[in-house]
């Protein structure tokens, strides 16, 4: 389909054509989302190398799905691409005050893979890194190796919360005790904990929830959703500004549901197909030479206290 055809097909929706066409011409220099207090959503397409355009009171970064241990096409060196993401993060003008890793740190939960991730993330000049596990981090041993390393001070399967500069961060775990035929699951114990954790907090408190599997039904046929996410979202609805950051699907998607905004991040390891465009969610192997890094990435989140606005900038690795 030509750009001109797209332009005609999407006419009348108020979108800046030049910005849109620039987006279509490239898969991912950077995209900024700003949630304004008046319910106005603003999107900006940035030129490559300028992800710091979205200013805010403070910023944090999201890295996801590093899959250290993966050695197949289209990326036989996932350590190198994670390093590119960390280098990029370290070059941001606004230094991130913390980093969230939203799971699948490793590919096979092996000790050496966890060691590599740990050592590499120590090189990120972005404050502490907070982790939640992906299914690849827990499937061989019910999460023992992951929890030995990252479980200190967490509850149950590794969930926890903390506050930073007035923003309440909640790390949820939806990859434990997966059932045959099912999706990601939070479970009753974690939902009760979440209810208790949020109790007594003012509805004006900005909330950032991070978990591996999307907390909305992206594509249940491929397991891209969380069975009991609606119960978690119902606990979050009373808050004025909620951002949910996920990984798992190795591509950027956004959804808004009332005051709750959902974002998924790119992987630093390999892209996966768009929902339903392939027989299975396996790695996209046929990435044209030189294009891999345009399909991998990291996200930078800028928070502005005045108005509680929050902007997610998804950057690719080239």
């Amino acid at each position, binding site marked *: 389909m030509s750009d001109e055809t797209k332009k005609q097909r999407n006419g009348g929706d108020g979108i800046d054509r*030049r*910005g849109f066409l620039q987006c279509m011409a490239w898969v991912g220099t950077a995209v900024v989302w700003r949630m304004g207090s008046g319910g106005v959503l603003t*999107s900006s397409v940035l030129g490559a190398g300028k992800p710091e355009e979205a200013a805010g009171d403070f910023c944090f970064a999201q890295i996801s799905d590093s899959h250290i241990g993966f050695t197949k096409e289209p990326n036989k060196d996932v350590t190198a691409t994670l390093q590119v993401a960390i280098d990029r993060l370290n070059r941001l003008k606004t230094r991130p005050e913390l980093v969230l890793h939203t799971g699948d740190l490793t*590919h096979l939960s092996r000790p050496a893979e966890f060691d590599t991730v740990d050592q590499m993330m120590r090189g990120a000049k972005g404050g502490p890194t907070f982790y939640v596990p992906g299914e690849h981090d827990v499937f061989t041993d019910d999460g023992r190796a992951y929890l030995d390393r990252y479980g200190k001070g967490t509850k149950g399967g590794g969930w926890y919360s903390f506050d930073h500069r007035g923003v309440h961060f909640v790390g949820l775990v939806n990859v434990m005790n997966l059932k045959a035929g099912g999706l990601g699951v939070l479970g009753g114990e974690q939902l009760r904990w979440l209810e208790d954790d949020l109790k007594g907090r003012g509805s004006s408190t900005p909330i950032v929830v991070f978990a591996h599997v999307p907390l909305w039904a992206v594509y249940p046929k491929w397991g891209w959703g969380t069975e009991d996410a609606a119960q978690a979202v119902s606990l979050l609805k009373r808050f004025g500004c909620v951002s949910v950051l996920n990984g798992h699907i190795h591509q950027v998607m956004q*959804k808004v549901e009332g005051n709750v905004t959902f974002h998924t991040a790119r992987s630093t390891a390999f892209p996966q197909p768009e929902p339903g465009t392939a027989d299975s969610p*396996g790695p996209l192997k046929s990435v044209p030479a030189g294009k891999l890094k345009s399909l991998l990435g990291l996200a930078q989140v800028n928070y502005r206290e005045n108005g509680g606005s929050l902007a997610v900038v998804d950057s690719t690795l080239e």
Partner: protein
Amino acid sequence: MLRVVSISSPALAGATLLLAGLFAGCSKPLGGAENAPAPRPQPAVEAADAGERRVVVDNFRFDPPVLTVPPGTKVTWVNRDDVPHTATSSDSPPKFRSRAIDTDETFSHVFSQPGTYPYFCAVHPKMTATVVVK
């Protein structure tokens, strides 16, 4: 160069969906049928004897989805995908449970007792299948 797209409040939900679609469109040329699995050299797996049956894991499916065997049969799973899978009993507590079966690796379990044994992949729980022993 900075390009700005502004969407006013009433159109918020629909416009967001539209944008999600547009971004999906951005990477279209890399998706679709091009992701079909490439032919792969056959792994060196020892020939199965009379008491062994094979389940091939390919393209996120167990094949055959239902395997019927006599008691005492050794069932061996072979993973032909580029990502790891498991063969994990769906029963609670699990009646058998593989480690990670990475590409071209195998896992075997001997089914001694008659019965129906549903199982799944603990990494991709949508993958389910059954061994019937009778």
